[in-house]
């Protein structure tokens, strides 16, 4: 008998006051997997999270957690019965309770078991010894970890996080992301988190579901999402993208940058996706000439704005060993095979 996947959303829709927010979304999350719901604000990702948690009910469709239908046309299981842990953007630690009492809040059983479990999770999040403190005595990062500990303590079937890092200092985010991923993997809990920050999604998640306009545009591991976006919108949202018009002729496509090899055969009018780091630059005007419009220097690499002879502008990213002057004419060469989208 196979273990049922922790979460299946099937054709869920939701509207508020007649305004549709989710259109027929479907998603499946695997055991012990970290899945990101990535999208701009208003795309419906937080709504999806709240449907999973049970704070709202879908207008149609079903939600199944660990093989049990928790939301459907005939069923609505209350949040408290779903065994779903939740960490909010602002952590929402109970201000009137100590760290230990916060973490133990959802635990049942005798005091000794509770104490042991609290000690376990505190160790897991790296904050042993803080049990007696009150939430206001902790830093932002510490509060986040306690909120995580509180949600993990009752060993939920599913853990939900709403924009978990948006309240932290940008400088700390990277390090804390790594730590949180380690904690989640060590706990082995299936996790779904919501973010608008693609860097966060790509670095933290095993799989990313890109949501645009209330629909799931693509679900894929980060590398696939970046290298093979399903639609132009996904390509534009995840990472930086240049789009060039082209005429596909089977194995190649004709563009302002010359004839480029295609990843898959195509015919007709297409839009070519060019990632900035896929553009190779050279001094001298071959194979395609471009003028440098602007330059951002980051030390370890640089971003350049380029204008081609036909007026198209592109953004290129390269290492910073070569300095390019504004107005300088350089050559642009596309690395590897390109992906295209049909142009409608």
């Amino acid at each position, binding site marked *: 008998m196979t273990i049922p996947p922790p979460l299946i959303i099937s054709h869920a829709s939701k509207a508020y006051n007649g305004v549709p927010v989710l259109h027929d979304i479907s998603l499946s999350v695997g055991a012990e997997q970290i899945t990101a719901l990535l999208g701009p604000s208003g795309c419906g990702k937080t709504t999806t999270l709240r449907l999973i948690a049970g*704070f709202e009910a879908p207008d149609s469709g079903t939600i199944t957690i660990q093989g049990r239908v928790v939301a459907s046309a005939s069923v609505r299981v209350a*949040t408290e019965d779903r065994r779903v842990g*939740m960490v909010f953007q602002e952590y929402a630690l109970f201000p009137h309770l100590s760290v230990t009492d916060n973490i133990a809040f959802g635990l049942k059983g005798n005091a000794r078991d509770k104490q042991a479990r609290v000690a376990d999770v505190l160790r897991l999040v790296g904050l042993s010894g803080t049990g007696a403190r009150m939430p206001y005595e902790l830093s932002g990062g510490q509060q986040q970890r306690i909120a995580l500990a509180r949600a993990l303590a009752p060993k939920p079937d599913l853990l939900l996080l709403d924009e978990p890092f948006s309240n932290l200092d940008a400088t700390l985010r990277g390090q804390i992301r790594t730590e949180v991923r380690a904690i989640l993997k060590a706990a082995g809990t299936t996790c779904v988190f919501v973010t608008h920050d693609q860097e966060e999604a790509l670095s933290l998640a095993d799989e990313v579901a890109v949501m645009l306009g209330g629909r799931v545009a693509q679900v894929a591991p980060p590398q696939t999402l970046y290298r093979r976006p399903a639609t132009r919108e996904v390509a534009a949202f995840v990472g930086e993208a240049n789009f060039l018009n082209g005429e596909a002729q089977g194995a190649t496509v004709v563009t302002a940058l010359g004839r480029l090899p295609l990843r898959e055969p195509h015919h007709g009018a297409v839009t070519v996706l060019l990632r900035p780091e896929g553009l190779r630059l050279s001094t001298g005007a071959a194979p395609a000439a471009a003028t440098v419009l602007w330059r951002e220097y980051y030390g370890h690499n640089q971003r350049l704005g380029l204008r081609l002879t036909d007026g198209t502008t592109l953004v290129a990213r390269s290492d910073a060993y070569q300095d390019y002057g504004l107005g300088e004419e350089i050559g642009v060469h596309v690395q590897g095979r390109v992906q295209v989208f049909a142009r409608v």
Partner: protein
Amino acid sequence: MQIARSASDSSPRLMPNFVRHFSGRHPSPLQVITALIVALVSLPLGYLVLRAVGAGQAGIDILFEARTLTVLFNSLVLAGSVVIGASVIGVPFAWLTARTDLPFRRFWLVGGLLTMVIPSYIGAMIYIAAFGPRGGLQGMLEPLGVTQLPSIYGFWGAFFAITLFTYPYVVLPVRAALMNMDPAQEESARSLGLNRWRVFMRVTLPQLRPALASGMLLAALYTLSDFGAVALMRYDSFTRVIYLQYTSSFDRNRAAVLSLVLVVVTVGLLVLERRAASKKRNYRVGVGSQRILPPVALGKWRLPALAFCAALVLIGVVTPVSVLVMWFVNGMGDKSAELLQPVVNTVSVSGMTALVVGMLALPPALLAARSASRGNRLLVQFAYLGNVLPGLVVALALVFFAANYLPSLYQTLPVLILGYATRFLPLSISATSSALTQVNPRFEEVGRSLGLRSWQVMARIVVPLSRAGILGGMALVFLSVMKELPTTLLLSPTGFDTLPTEIWSAHAQVQLSRLGSPSLLLIAVSALSLLVILRQEQKSRG
């Protein structure tokens, strides 16, 4: 007296959905219980309407009599003047004690708020004794040749006394608003070049509007429903005239019609208040505790500010205390041990009412704080009608109702408590729902995600976090019951002497020496509950 804000966030996404919409689907238990409570406290209003309508044509005649219109005019003028007076005193006072480096701020705050503690009838008696004919002030000025002071009776006396008693109702919410404001807004304004005065006018004051509106409404409602002060100052506003009608003639129609007009006016005020107050989120989102603005340095204004506060305390505290002490001293030797029973009675009935009201207020407060539906909020608004009605009307209505329909309960403690509950339930609903609104809905959602049932979420998260506000509301009810005169006068079981009835009868019999002990006692106990309120306020900030 506090009137609640309407329910908090109107966005359904942000509110826990355990209160179902009032849309004709079968109502939730919470709605049913709330409806029952509302029905209970609506009894007096029901009787009133019955009586007034039952008067038929005679009633309509009374409505348009010149006498009625005069009374209406008198009441409105008094209420309007008091509101202005209370705001003119209250806002600066609140600002001085909340935002500046005024020395001995706590002392001035407590002193300035103490007038709230003096029941209006006692205060009126005191000011008549101090500033009236053959009073203390005249006695002091007599050697200087002043033989007659301008009469304290009539409009000026009523205005003076009631303003002194109601300005704290402006101070409290304005102070709370000042202390809870986001400092970053004023700091941004100052960084944009506005001087302190303009910051106050353009940033602070607009944010104070709901609090100020709330305070002004309370002052207006207090004025309209006050009985003791206007009766003693002989000012013909509604309550005095209604009382005279009831006691002197058996024509209940006139009293009923006048009461109905009064109710309409007060409901009109409430509608105005709803429009003036804007809905905003009360709960604090974010990490850590809120920053507090550094106090404004008064500099050369320090002396005038101190003089202002000192004047308030002089008139509001020192004068009453001196008069009371004088009465007390004159009355020493009287059998003051006789006061033990009235004290016990008063404290126990106030305590019981506070507890009862505290519990009764929970369902409507929950409904008001957490429901988005207009139906629910309308339901809760009905509960406020008991506060809108003057105590006099409530008491008389219950007298009639009990005498006719519940003869066995007539003139018993439960009816008295019901009368108080009808009057003061809104205080508790308002404070409780305000406290509940301040609890971030996220906490409830977290609780539910950790497996707690709704009632457990209530008990372990929401109520502890709103405890300060809820207890503050109950303390306010306790305080109000202790002071309450007309309800007590008419509904107390025979032989059940309370401090207010003691005082009233002593004054009626012009035995001023009997006034000292009971008044002092009443005021002392009231002051204690005020301290409770202040401490709760402080705790809820930390």
